[in-house]
């Protein structure tokens, strides 16, 4: 083989990647500015969009590596509790707790990833799902209640920032999470993750260590989900509850699934579209329609389930994914 290989290890991002990154930055800035000018309720809605964007990215990172987590709330809640316990029980600086707390999620992610990397397909879903009741049980256990405040939940001191600044911080973190995904996606590891998702055996025979990557990705995903949890309680609710573990109520585990899949989980821009469209809708359904529905507070789950079926039948790669794939093949056809 006569081809000379480029020596550098660093990757030059393709032009369209910069355009997408700028578009995402602009979109996040617009959401932040408009909601802030609109009032304090829209500001809170925008803040949950940012939190759930980070959270949904953590889920889609796993899903795009062929690991469907049905218990992502484990990491979300661990991040929330780590922040709460650091601040309340140990008097840690809130800023430090916001970024260091999620390390607990990363460690849990590495452990769960190590086991998951030996499992295939739906077993990962069952395994992760089975962990959430355990997390809930720990949170409400009487032995740990000096730290967790048991079923009552932890009430947190206010984060030392104004509402507007908290929203700005949330959007900055959301953009940082997007950049992390973008970097992973455009380096050789990103291609490898996609190959692992497609065919782990074939990925192995071309030299990809899928067990190592799966474990590592679970660690990163665990950190991101836990960061979302910490952001949620530090900047928004000021309260940590056991049901953040997605048990007995599934919601905290399934929102990122819905947002990612409907928006287009293969693309971080698609996940943003899913979150921006669905998260406010979810809040609205819950606050204005649920009380009158026969399924009560679960109305949003029912509606989103139906929505997911409709979208995936028409557009299997989600809203953004289908458009992107269509454009790409059209460009390829025109180039010929």
């Amino acid at each position: 083989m006569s081809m000379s290989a480029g020596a550098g290890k660093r990757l030059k991002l393709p032009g369209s990647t910069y355009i997408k990154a700028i578009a995402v930055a602009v979109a996040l800035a617009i959401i932040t500015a408009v909601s802030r000018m609109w009032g304090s309720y829209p500001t809170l809605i925008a803040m949950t969009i940012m939190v759930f964007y980070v959270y949904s990215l953590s889920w889609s990172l796993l899903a795009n590596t062929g690991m469907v987590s049905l218990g992502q709330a484990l990491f979300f809640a661990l991040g929330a509790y780590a922040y709460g316990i650091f601040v309340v029980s140990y008097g840690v600086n809130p800023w430090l707790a916001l970024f260091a707390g999620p390390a607990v999620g990363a460690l849990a992610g590495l452990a769960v990833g190590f086991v998951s990397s030996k499992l295939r397909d739906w077993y990962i879903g069952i395994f992760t799902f089975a962990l959430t009741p355990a997390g809930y049980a720990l949170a409400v256990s009487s032995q740990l209640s000096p730290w967790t405040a048991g079923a009552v939940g932890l009430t947190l001191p206010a984060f030392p920032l104004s509402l507007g600044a908290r929203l700005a911080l949330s959007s900055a973190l959301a953009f940082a999470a997007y950049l992390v995904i973008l970097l992973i996606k455009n380096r050789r590891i990103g291609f490898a993750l996609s190959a692992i998702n497609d065919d782990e055996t074939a990925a192995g025979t071309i030299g990809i260590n899928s067990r190592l990557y799966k474990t590592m990705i679970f660690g990163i995903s665990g950190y991101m989900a836990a960061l979302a949890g910490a952001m949620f309680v530090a900047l928004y609710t000021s309260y940590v509850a056991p049901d953040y573990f997605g048990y007995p109520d599934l919601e905290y585990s399934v929102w990122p699934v819905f947002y990612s899949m409907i928006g287009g989980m293969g693309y971080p821009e698609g996940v943003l579209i899913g979150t921006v469209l669905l998260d406010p809708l979810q809040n609205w359904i819950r606050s204005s329609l649920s009380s009158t529905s026969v399924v009560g507070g679960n109305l949003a789950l029912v509606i989103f389930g139906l929505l997911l079926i409709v979208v995936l039948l028409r557009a299997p790669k989600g809203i953004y994914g289908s458009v992107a794939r269509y454009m790409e093949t059209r460009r390829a056809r025109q180039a010929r």
Partner: protein
Amino acid sequence: MSLLEVSGVTKRFGGLIALNGVDLAVGRGELVGVIGPNGAGKTTLVNVVTGVYYPESGRIIFDGHDITKTPPHRRARLGISRTYQVPRPFNNLNVLDNVALAAMYGSRRISVRGARELAMDLLGRVRLAERAQDYPESLSVVELRKLELARALAQGSKLVFLDEVSAGLVGDDLREVLSVVKDIHEGGVTMVMIEHVMKVIFNLTERIIVMMNGQKLAEGKPSEVASDARVVESYLGRRWSEI
């Protein structure tokens, strides 16, 4: 010393013995042909050497390393690659990146851009450059075989197994693919070429191994093998020119 030494390898699938104490040595720079009827164990042999399956007994030595229990990705990095008889493309990557990815994780260090350049070159050589930006799902079976070939060659391996890459190819496509194989081999890459029929490899290889029922039935120069009574018999009495 041989590049690859397989000794006494046995692989069972339930009650079925797919490989029964197979010995095989491949020297550096060789191009060995392997033929045999359906179910002879040819693909299983590749699977066992590349680590897709682990044998129940026997040893596999590659380039001085005992790789009998080594996981597949490490064997690839040591310098073994293969094609799949039933193509296994990465459907979420386009054709170019399928090949580039193999270059990125093969036995040499290379940048993403360098890998893409190398991939484009290989796609040109197997006459698949036109489809570089397409996704594998839109490829024909013949195109998928070429993709398998390009991907296996992109790894820059010392030893390449080609599992029926020429199946379904005719005319110019067949000639081109065989000439790529020949070029790469002449560039110093050791190859094991599995074919269903002898015709394709008769002029290409110096040595042919005939497998049957999980065992080595015969081995030798193409002309010797072709006149071997047992080989002729195993192909139900057909003349070698037909097999």
